């Protein structure tokens, strides 16, 4: 199979685009398409100070690499979560980030926050001490990451927070939200989450139109080394099961994931799940951290650290990445 642009041997064939490219043209195409996504959804401009949330995985490191290649002023932040589980997962993840900086961008700026040093407990510990977190730390981890990524970006004066979510991530969330008809989450799901409340920064997903496999191919061809193993806590996670289902359907119908997610975005532009009849949710300011919360008093994140031996999570926990529930 030949590259559509130069007739050299192709190394990537994207069935959903009916597009095969050689290494050089694929490494040009992905940043070009990222730029188109940034512009289409008005994510940010070259004048904005951007913070990329990196984990040591392929998506976030590729997102940082692409933005720097495109010439954006993009610094990065990472959370050291203290996940060990006998394999030193968080330490290994951090090593990949440092290796990326040394190998590609020695002058890049990385802000690191160690959760245990900052709050006294690692993710694993706080999950174990919390009834809701026992055996399923992902809910606790997600809550902490959402809160801390926003806090760090806000406190450091960044206007935009970039995450490495790809199309498979978004399609998986969409699938889960549709199975449960989570209307509020469907209304909010978007490549851009605006900073529409005090204390929030704008969150954007410039890789949201790429298949996960194509981001992995980009990382491989760029020589970006990344943490290969899954988080030990994610085994059996619902998002991974959703991806498995969607990939099974993709096998029979190439392009289905793209049609599902991009079709959803297009339908939203035409009025599906719009906010016309949505009742505005009243939000309060957390007494301790100041971030928006659905109930007066402390937000779920702050309660997490103030009463670690009790179950502080109730059924109000949401998938909305911009709202820290009261719990």
């Amino acid at each position, binding site marked *: *199979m030949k590259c559509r642009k130069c007739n050299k041997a192709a*190394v990537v064939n994207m069935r959903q685009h009916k597009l095969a490219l050689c290494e050089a043209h694929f490494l040009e195409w992905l940043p070009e398409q990222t730029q188109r996504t940034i512009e289409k959804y008005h994510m940010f401009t070259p004048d904005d100070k951007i913070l990329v949330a990196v984990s040591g995985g392929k*998506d976030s490191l590729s997102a940082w690499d692409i933005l720097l290649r495109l010439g954006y002023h993009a610094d990065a932040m990472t959370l050291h979560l203290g996940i060990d589980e006998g394999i030193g997962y968080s330490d290994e993840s951090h090593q990949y980030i440092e290796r990326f900086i040394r190998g590609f961008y020695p002058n890049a700026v990385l802000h690191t926050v160690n959760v245990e040093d900052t709050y006294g407990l690692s993710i694993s510990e706080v999950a174990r001490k919390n009834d809701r977190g026992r055996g399923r730390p992902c809910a606790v981890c997600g809550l902490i990451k959402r809160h801390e990524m926003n806090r760090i970006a806000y406190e450091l004066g960044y206007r935009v927070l970039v995450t490495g979510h790809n199309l*498979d991530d978004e399609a998986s969330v969409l699938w889960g939200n549709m199975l449960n008809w989570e209307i509020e989450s469907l209304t909010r799901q978007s490549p851009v989450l605006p900073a529409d409340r005090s204390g929030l920064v704008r969150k954007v997903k410039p890789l949201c139109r790429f298949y996960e*496999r194509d981001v992995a191919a980009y990382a491989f061809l760029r020589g970006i080394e990344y943490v*290969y193993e899954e988080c030990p806590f994610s085994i059996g996670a619902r998002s991974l099961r959703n991806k498995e289902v969607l*990939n099974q359907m*993709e096998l029979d119908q190439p392009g289905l994931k793209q049609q599902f997610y991009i079709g959803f975005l297009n339908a939203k532009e035409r009025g599906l799940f719009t906010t016309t009849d949505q009742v505005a949710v009243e939000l309060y300011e957390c007494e301790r951290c100041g971030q928006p919360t659905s109930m007066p008093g402390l937000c779920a994140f702050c309660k997490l650290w103030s009463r670690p031996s009790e179950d502080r999570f109730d059924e109000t926990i949401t998938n909305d990445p911009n709202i820290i529930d009261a719990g």
Partner: protein
Amino acid sequence: MIKVTYRDKHWEVPGHIAVRDLIIKVGLNPATVLAVRKNKLVLDSEVLGEDDEIKLIAVISGG
């Protein structure tokens, strides 16, 4: 025989088979892995020879 590795698993598969069919034959989904030969990506449509060694890289992340 083609030698195939994926994480800590190993298979040997008779040659003259397309990468996509090989991936399905070992029980994986072609949408979830990249195929690498001699540190180069290999297209799903490429037919492999008897002596090829293929490393399959998982692409799924998240949780």
